[in-house]
């Protein structure tokens, strides 16, 4: 297990080790640039995050155990109209992880009969708002930033979804299983 951890973080650990040596060296020999990098940049950044980050992760963990995506996914299926759009958006907001993690979910939705437009709205929505990630965004950029960004983005990705849905239907395309 220890071996796996070292292997996984090989790149990170080498950077951290090299930096530690560099900083010790800088302080010992009073090498100004090294001391500046540590004090003005590195330490200033760490100070701001070290308390807040674990707290944000606890929030993410709590969210994870209380809200189940599976339940929402069950309702999405063929739901259409405003209700369908709202449901795919809700499912999208609950999702964590990068955009490419949403592709397999898009395939499942397609299998369940979700319309192309709603699938593309889902892709847009999942990239715009992830509730588990909101605490990070609000923490580092402020709630005003989050709210403005989200409200501006919603009409944009709905429009993209409608255009993509039209294109998809017009050309009789299908969502494949990714293999």
């Amino acid at each position: 297990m220890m071996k796996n951890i070292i292997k996984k973080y090989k790149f990170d650990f080498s950077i951290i080790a090299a930096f530690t040596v560099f900083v010790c060296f800088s302080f010992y020999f009073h090498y100004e640039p090294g001391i500046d990098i540590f004090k003005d940049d590195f330490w200033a950044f760490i100070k701001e995050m070290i308390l807040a980050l674990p707290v944000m992760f606890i929030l993410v963990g709590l969210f994870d155990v209380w809200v189940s995506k599976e339940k929402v996914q069950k309702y999405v299926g063929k739901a259409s109209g405003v209700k369908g759009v709202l449901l795919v958006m809700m499912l999208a907001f609950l999702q964590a992880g990068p955009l490419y993690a949403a592709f397999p979910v898009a395939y499942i939705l397609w299998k369940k009969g979700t319309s192309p437009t709603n699938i593309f709205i889902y892709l847009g929505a999942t990239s715009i708002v992830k509730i588990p990630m909101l605490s990070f965004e609000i923490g580092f950029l402020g709630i005003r930033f989050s709210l403005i960004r989200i409200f501006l983005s919603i009409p944009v990705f709905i429009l993209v979804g409608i255009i993509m849905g039209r294109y998809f239907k017009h050309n009789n395309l299908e969502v494949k299983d990714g293999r």
Partner: protein
Amino acid sequence: MFLKMIGIIILTIILTIISFIFNRKKTLKGIRKGIMMFVKILPTLLSVIIIVSIVLYFVSDKILMQYFGNKAGLMAYVSAALIGAISIIPGFIAYPLSGILISKGISYAVIAVFITALKMVGILTIPLEAKYFGLKTAIIRNLLAFVGALIVGSLMAFIYEMI
């Protein structure tokens, strides 16, 4: 910065207490899950902060402003959108990084373009997206998302200038 953090910390404490009252076991599981996630990203986060610290030492605030500051105009947005579109950075690293850049004087609007492009556009993952939707669809969607990110960013610039 500090005030925003205090809000999140208080919110977390309140929610944890509520969650604890309703279900002790679930709460402990959630907290453990969150801490595990934090520990897992810690090495990556540290090395990213190290690299950013070193890069920002060599790239003076002046150069940074020249390319991403208010006076850079449209180019700042296009570069931010391009960087966001190409890179694959998870949110828990992108947000602290954005916080650093804001503290260096880069505008919220430029950061908004970067974040939106980062999330909606994935140039490097187009081959993967193509496996699900076909290459042409993947390219069109990414192009539209790129334009969308620029629109959101410019509107945000407009709003931030008003307030």
